């Protein structure tokens, strides 16, 4: 319950999200794993705000949320455009830059 445990939980969630990005093939799911990582970081910020009894951490978490929202908007728009062109949501389909 100490800030340390919050940070530990944040770490675990972050690593889960990172591994998920690497392992999944569906673009939507990869996006969602990225969101998970962002949420984990937010939790860490809040924990540190609690640690120092200082609101700066929360402000930063707030801004992270805003930026995450903007990023999701643009990312999903891109995904839609790709989907319309290729009819597939798998990231492995886009491998034309191979050797």
């Amino acid at each position, binding site marked *: *319950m*100490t*800030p*340390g*445990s919050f*940070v*530990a*939980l944040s*770490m*675990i*969630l972050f*690593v*889960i999200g990172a*591994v*998920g990005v*690497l*392992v*999944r*093939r*569906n673009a*939507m*799911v990869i*996006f*969602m*794993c990225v*969101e*998970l990582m962002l*949420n984990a970081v*937010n939790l860490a910020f*809040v924990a540190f*705000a*609690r*640690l*120092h*009894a*200082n*609101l*700066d951490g*929360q*402000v930063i*978490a*707030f*801004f992270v*949320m*805003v*930026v*995450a*929202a*903007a*990023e*999701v908007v*643009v990312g*999903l728009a891109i*995904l*839609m*455009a790709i*989907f*319309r062109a290729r009819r597939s*949501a798998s990231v*492995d389909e886009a491998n034309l830059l191979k050797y």
Partner: protein
Amino acid sequence: MSGVLAAGQATSAGASVTFWVLAVISVAAGLGMVLARRAVHCAVLLAVVMLSLAVLYAVAGAPFLAFVQIIVYTGAVLMLFLFVLMIVGVSARDSMRETIAGQRLAAGVAGIGLLVLLSLIVGHAAIGPAAPPSPQYGTNNLRGLATLIFTRYVFPFEVTAALLITAALGAMVLAHRERTTPKPTQRELSQQRVSGAHPSPLPGPGVFARHNAVDFPALLPDGTPAPLSVSPVLARERGSSAAQLPPGGGTGDDEGAAGRPQIAGAEPEEARP
């Protein structure tokens, strides 16, 4: 609000229990999210994680952030995810077979490595107990946040606002599709309808439906499935699974392909408004 706050500020057993329960739930949901086969399941599990995180924010003394998490993050961003999932293919099951050799192993090893490293760092950092609540951190969380945002962090605030506007514009540009043919006028549409196969207005959705599922086609008078009764997107996605008479009812089963007539894939262009 103050009750939540009071509950959050106390390092009591209640807070600990909350924390541990929610921690287990969020980790389990996270793992499930990474391992789930269908994308919709991943979205729902992400929602679970976000909600438990919201409660944890509240426990940690950030009530405003908790509500913003629920309203904005879960309620808006995640819903956006779900909308796009609908368009892209809601019940498509991902193949869990890994195509790139060694990817999973490497990802697993790297992940464990990162976990170990972070543990070392965090362990070395010696994060102590929470500081006593300062006047700034005190009862009025909202006022404190507002003060900070509009004084010390006003410049990032303005920049983030610009970012939002830019993102919205960018999304509009990306989603825009040029018409290659002129938009048909009302007169042209009427002419098409009268000279086409169905002069009379088509029945509304669900009139001839035999089933609640949207991917279950209605039957024509002669007993064949009606191509117009299923969305062309669903028909294409499901392939052979759409518009089939079930042997004994049941929802659309993706894999069963035997004995089900196919609906030919329709044009993705929406010819009707």
